[in-house]
């Protein structure tokens, strides 16, 4: 059952996000150099950190998938990577807005974090096309896991490499979180926590929705298999991978098999 903790998780997210936003706009002091513009820091940097952690976690989940061959781990890996990609896109957009406000350009190559993010985004943008291009569900999950592990290992290496290559002419405002004064640090931590909760809630929401669709498909297959005259084709478009999601039995025991139907998936 994927939806079990969803309600408490979303309530926690609402509380945390409201607290974070309140702190950002009512409590955190104005920064000396950038003034009000610096407030973007509290949304941009948590997005960045959570997105990167998400990519690495996606790789870890893929490792578990390859070791246990349980499709549910691939499923989680997919959702986490997908959500991290969206957060990465939001990171790039908010970073670009901040760059425009700070230096007048929509993009600067001097910010190693932003540049690394662009590279990571371009890499993970191929994840879904890769999955789409493989028909067999078991092979799709396996290849996707190989990709997720490779890319997850690549993320920190890429950051180090790009950071090394950047000239240090511009003060790196976006990257430094080490010497924040007290109230700013508190605000930042709360924002980070709120973003983490938001990420987890959205992932859980997505997992539950996909699982529900899979249950529906299984139900439809069972029902239409009994009556020969009806349309076997599942409703709606073929969803993006993974197309073989192990369906939990109503008794609560998860599906015994690894859940890779060879045929019949729509």
């Amino acid at each position, binding site marked *: 059952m994927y939806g079990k903790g969803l309600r408490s998780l979303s309530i926690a997210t609402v509380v945390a996000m409201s607290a974070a*936003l309140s702190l950002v706009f009512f409590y955190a002091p*104005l920064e*000396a*150099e*950038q*003034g*009000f*513009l610096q*407030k*973007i820091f509290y*949304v*941009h940097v948590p*997005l960045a950190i959570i997105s990167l952690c998400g990519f690495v976690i996606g790789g870890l989940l893929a490792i578990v998938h390859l070791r246990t061959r349980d499709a549910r781990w691939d499923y989680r890996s997919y959702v986490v990577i997908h959500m991290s990609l*969206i957060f990465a896109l*939001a990171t790039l*957009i*908010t970073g670009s*807005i*901040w760059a*425009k*406000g*700070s230096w007048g350009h929509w993009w600067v190559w001097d910010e190693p974090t932003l540049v690394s993010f662009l590279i990571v985004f371009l890499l993970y943008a191929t994840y879904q096309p890769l999955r789409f291009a493989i028909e067999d569900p078991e092979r799709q999950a396996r290849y996707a896991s190989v990709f997720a592990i490779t890319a997850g290992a690549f993320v920190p290496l890429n950051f180090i490499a790009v950071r090394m290559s950047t000239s240090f002419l511009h003060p790196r405002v976006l990257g430094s979180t080490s010497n924040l004064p007290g109230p700013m640090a508190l605000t930042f931590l709360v924002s980070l926590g709120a973003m983490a909760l*938001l990420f987890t809630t*959205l992932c859980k*929401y997505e997992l539950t*929705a996909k699982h*529900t*669709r899979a249950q*529906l498909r299984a*139900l*439809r297959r069972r*029902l*239409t298999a*009994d*009556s020969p005259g*009806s349309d076997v084709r599942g*409703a*709606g478009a073929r969803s993006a991978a993974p197309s073989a999601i192990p369906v939990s039995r109503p008794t609560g025991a998860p599906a015994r098999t690894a859940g890779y139907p060879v045929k019949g998936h729509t």
Partner: protein
Amino acid sequence: MSRLLAETPALPLHEAGKYVAAAYIVLFAMVLIYVTIMAVRLSRIERELGELLETVEARDGEQGRTDPERGS
């Protein structure tokens, strides 16, 4: 307070405010777009469940018997 803000060396408030608002709107839009996607999915699930329920009822009606296994 407004005098302090007026002295900050960076973009004046009415300028910086636009950028900050835009950045937070990105976050807001991200969540709302997800809500929309979920709404579409929910309506599709409801429709599919309705169809399946019709199929079951039609089949029960055809066979004209109450099968204890079939439940409601």
